């Protein structure tokens, strides 16, 4: 191991960081304000301005400090919380309740989320139809838009979607950061294959019953979005499962393990996203020449995506969500963002700059609507 190898500085000067932020500044200005900032409603205008500044300050900080994960996580966690706030606020206004009724199901008024996608595949192939009581096109969170967003984001980012686009991931990401040290240290890495088992189970059960079984019975995020009105033993059991899984996998275990346990052990879409890592242009690479095998990356990875064996081989597994935690933790910058085809250890800055622009742009635009709506609500409360 050559310890005299220079590490590549990812930190940029203030001016250079500003220059790198300029394209993000212009594009997010167009998307967030529509090109014409409107301050006729002060709360709405202020919310828009705050979100615009927030995303650009975070992106600037990524370049200026050379760190990724901390600034990504800030927006990611705000996104998760604001999406839940927006959805709950919307439901309380429309339905006066967080629960949906049988009429909402019969009238196909349930907002669609990307976690339904694995269950849609087999029924769509065999019955040429979608097994979800939502709107195909038009209205809030319609099926077409959500599928298109997910497909394109997944082709480009692979499992990066789980750390840069998923509006649920921020919950367990947030809770996994609350404690400084882990309480539970030894978790078998075999558990990381669990999402594939869940994926197979929900795909088959959804195909057999023509029902989105994961949403109906398992999804922990029903606890912070919407759930079936409790009117029977069955609906009470479901509510109990949602709350238990949220409490266990999204709050308690992430706090104790400092890992994103819901994403690592349960999410069936995460399993599909892992497979999509095979086609995405962006990846995380290990430069074996620079690596001193301190295994800090193994320790900090929130998704069990790097093992000691992976480090020795110089590969990151398909579970990687490109969150940047390992990249930030590596003192020698041996682990870095890369582009497929480019050998590890080369063009580190170029690869990082391109990946950050693509992934952060996606998250900034995708999240801005719900964050603006949340800030608007907060400003109206304060002022």
């Amino acid at each position, binding site marked *: 191991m050559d310890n005299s190898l220079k590490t590549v500085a990812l930190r940029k000067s203030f001016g250079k960081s500003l220059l790198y932020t300029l394209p993000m500044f212009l594009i997010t200005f167009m998307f967030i304000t529509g090109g014409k900032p409107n301050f006729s409603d002060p709360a709405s205008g202020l919310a828009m301005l705050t979100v615009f500044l927030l995303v650009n300050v975070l992106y600037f900080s990524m370049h200026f400090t050379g760190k990724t994960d901390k600034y990504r996580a800030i927006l990611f966690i705000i996104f998760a919380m604001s999406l839940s706030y927006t959805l709950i606020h919307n439901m309380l206004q429309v339905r006066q309740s967080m629960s949906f009724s049988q009429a909402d199901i*019969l009238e196909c008024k349930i907002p669609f989320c990307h976690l339904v996608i694995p269950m849609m595949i087999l029924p769509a192939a065999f019955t040429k*139809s979608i097994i979800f009581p939502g709107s195909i096109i038009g209205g809030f969170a319609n099926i*077409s838009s959500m599928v298109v967003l997910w497909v394109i984001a997944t082709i480009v980012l692979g499992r990066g979607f789980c750390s840069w686009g998923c509006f649920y991931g921020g919950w367990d990401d947030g809770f996994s950061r609350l404690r400084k040290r882990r309480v539970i240290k030894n978790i078998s890495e075999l558990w990381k294959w669990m999402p594939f088992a869940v994926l197979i189970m929900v795909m088959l059960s959804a195909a057999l019953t023509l029902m989105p079984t994961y949403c109906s019975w398992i999804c922990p995020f029903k606890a912070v979005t919407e759930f079936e009105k409790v009117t029977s033993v069955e609906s009470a059991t479901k509510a109990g499962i949602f709350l238990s899984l949220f409490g266990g996998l999204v709050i308690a275990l992430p706090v104790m393990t400092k890992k994103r346990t819901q994403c690592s052990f349960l999410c069936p879409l995460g399993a599909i996203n892992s497979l999509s890592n095979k086609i995405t242009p962006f990846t995380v690479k290990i430069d074996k020449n620079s690596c001193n095998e301190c295994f800090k990356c193994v320790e900090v990875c929130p998704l069990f995506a790097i093992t000691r064996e992976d480090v020795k081989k110089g590969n990151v597994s398909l579970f990687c969500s490109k969150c940047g935690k390992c990249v930030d933790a590596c003192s020698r910058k041996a682990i870095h963002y890369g582009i497929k085809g480019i050998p590890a250890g080369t063009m580190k800055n170029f690869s990082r700059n391109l990946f950050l622009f693509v992934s952060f742009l996606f998250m900034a635009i995708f999240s801005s609507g719900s964050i603006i709506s949340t800030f608007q609500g907060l400003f109206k409360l304060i002022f």
Partner: protein
Amino acid sequence: MKNVRIIAGICWAIAGLILIIILFPGLNSFSVSFSKLPFMKLNPRYTGGEIATQLISEKCTLDIRKPVFSGLLKERNSGFVQLDWHGTVPGIIKDSIDYDNDGKKDFCIEVNRAKSESGIQLYNSKVKKILISTPASYGWAVRVGLSKE
């Protein structure tokens, strides 16, 4: 060969960048195009099926939908028929239904909307029970369980 791989990788990454940049402005048109794909329609288990008969009275219309038995590979033995009352729906609904259009009444449904109580009288052994009876934004909806045999 190494350079070809590098160039291919960079081209693929730049294509990804372009995809993300055009994704949001183009989302509406992409979604509309996607929604036209053959499988992009809701399963009848969710829509309630196509309207088979409409019974129009003075102020209220009753839609009797086609029975739904949809399954993954073939039709199932058990299914349902959905009835939708819309317009000015009376406080007490009482209708006899011929769901299979054979000229014979198959069941009689009675709903007290104020008390949210529903009852059914069965005239056909294929008709099972009320699965759902609920107020809807357009009036009232009922799903009645059916079997094929």
